[in-house]
């Protein structure tokens, strides 16, 4: 569905050349649900804008829905749907008018466009707002309208740029319900950008991590976490058995990255352990057998933030707030 080769975009800002996207190769198969994850300014949106023909690549090539973005941008646009970061509805327009016009822009006749708009409004809880002007809608209602606009022509490939930024948790959940339902019903291929790692984690089958314009990881969320991060294990033991436990855990921790804090006669060890959940029961037994039983144990599965930290040495959270 998508194939890019060395796709690159450079901008000139105050006479300085900034490489926003540095030669990325991306392949997306029909029906996939892919998230571009990375901090603000990583190049996610720039990549998406090149794929949707809103930005001309500086170099490299991209084929989207079987069409070359450089040779036939209008052909690409006819085959994809795009839901951008901003609100798509014109302020002074009525919801229903904008939806019908959107359908007309894609070559639907008025009757079909009207029927489609009504179906979408019903499924996105917008039916009561059909004749309301966009400026009078709440933020969540506008975002739902954006989704309706993007789905009017039932695209086989849908791009969403930061779809849930600024939405409250309930609206985010609603939005995803619609996106996933559409995918289930129509087999739509979906590509989105997000800097919410929990969103990339729970919703996408495949996560492409982008940082400084380069793809630094590309896999399923669970494999990324298992391969790159591992579970975080924290064990507390009595101060007297610390040396025994240190040796035991040291052998288990592959990279020897172990922290140790002592307080109130207790020593607390923290270490990252691939397959930690599977190893923990065995470790507890060994400690018990060695006469150094654990006083407490805490096990935390990794997040995509841990993956990002492992890959870049920076936290995605910090990056997102800059």
């Amino acid at each position: 569905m998508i194939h890019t080769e060395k796709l690159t975009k450079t901008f000139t800002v105050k006479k300085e050349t900034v490489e926003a996207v540095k030669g990325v190769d991306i392949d997306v198969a029909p029906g996939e649900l892919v998230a571009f994850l990375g901090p603000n300014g990583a190049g996610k949106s720039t990549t998406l804008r090149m794929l949707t023909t809103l930005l001309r690549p500086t170099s490299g090539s991209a084929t989207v829905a079987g069409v070359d973005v450089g040779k036939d941008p209008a052909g690409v646009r006819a085959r994809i749907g795009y839901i951008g970061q901003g609100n798509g509805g014109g302020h002074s327009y009525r919801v229903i008018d904008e939806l019908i016009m959107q359908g007309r822009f894609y070559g639907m006749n008025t009757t079909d466009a009207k029927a489609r708009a009504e179906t979408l409004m019903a499924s996105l809880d917008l039916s009561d707002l059909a004749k309301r002007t966009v400026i009078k809608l709440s933020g969540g209602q506008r975002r739902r309208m954006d989704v309706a606009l993007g789905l009017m022509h039932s695209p086989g490939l849908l791009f969403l740029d930061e779809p849930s930024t600024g939405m409250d948790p309930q609206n985010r959940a609603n939005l995803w319900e619609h996106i996933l339902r559409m995918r289930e019903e129509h087999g739509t291929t979906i590509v989105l950008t997000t800097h919410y790692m929990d969103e990339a984690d729970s919703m996408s089958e495949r996560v492409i991590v982008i940082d400084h314009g380069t793809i630094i990881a590309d896999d399923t969320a669970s494999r990324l976490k298992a391969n790159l991060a591992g579970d975080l294990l924290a064990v507390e033991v009595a101060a007297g058995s610390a040396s025994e436990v240190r040796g035991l855990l040291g052998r288990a921790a592959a990279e020897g990255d172990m922290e140790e804090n002592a307080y109130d006669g207790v020593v607390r060890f923290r270490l990252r352990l691939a397959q930690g959940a599977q190893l923990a029961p065995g470790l507890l037994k060994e400690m018990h057998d060695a006469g150094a039983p654990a006083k407490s144990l805490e096990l935390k599965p990794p997040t995509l933030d841990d993956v990002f930290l492992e890959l870049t040495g920076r936290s995605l959270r910090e990056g997102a707030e800059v």
Partner: protein
Amino acid sequence: MIEQAVAPGVSLQRRGPRSILTDTWFVFWREMLLPLRDPFSLIFSLIQPLVFLGLFGPLLGSAVGAPAFGGQSTLQWFLPGVVVMIALFGTSMTGSNLQYELMTGSYERILATPLSRSSLMIGRALKEWAPLVVQGLLIAVVCIPFGFVFHPLHVLLGLVILGIFGIGLGALSYALALVSQNKEWIFWGVQQTLLFPLMILSGIMLPIEAGPGWMKVASLFNPLTYLVNAERELFSGQIGMDTMWGLVAAVVTAAVGLVVGIRTISRNTN
């Protein structure tokens, strides 16, 4: 070719080579929905030129004196100028509506549709021109009792020439809005600074023949001068060389405007 999933009950026809005409019609129609859904704005736009004509016309007649108008009545001379002025103000505002859409995501959403780039500009410019047809005919009819001689077909041709000119000016205004994105004051600064010299140097308000020599020379380089002369000829019921030159000026403005506009749109996008 990738198979598109289609929702039940929806027949998604795939378009062949997209026609700029249909695209322009869609863009025009979307823009027209605003005044159609809110007709009061139309009523005001009809009253304004009448007020202007009613207040400025009498002053002009007594201040300048009849000989400057080439023997015509003041009204016959001034009315076509007012029509050109409405066209000038209207179509040079094409970019201002775009500015709101640039601030939200609505312009970007439309850019992501398959609509052709030139239709985006032409459709918007024509929306600013369309009310002029009604305005022009209305003020012409209203002025009949005051001695204005109305030649409907000539006036219609005059409005068509103004429409062609308006496409060019609208496209330039559109490009100006794109260039001044995030710095909206630039749009207004440039638009206002250019509008008044263009208007005065075309002899819309006062006969340029009454001015000093350098003004007459400057007016020769102003495309609007030829438009105004053409409209004056047409409104007086004649079709001659002035009309021809007016048409040439309109076509040249349209061509230049569209080239500049399309270049501006595609400087970054595809």
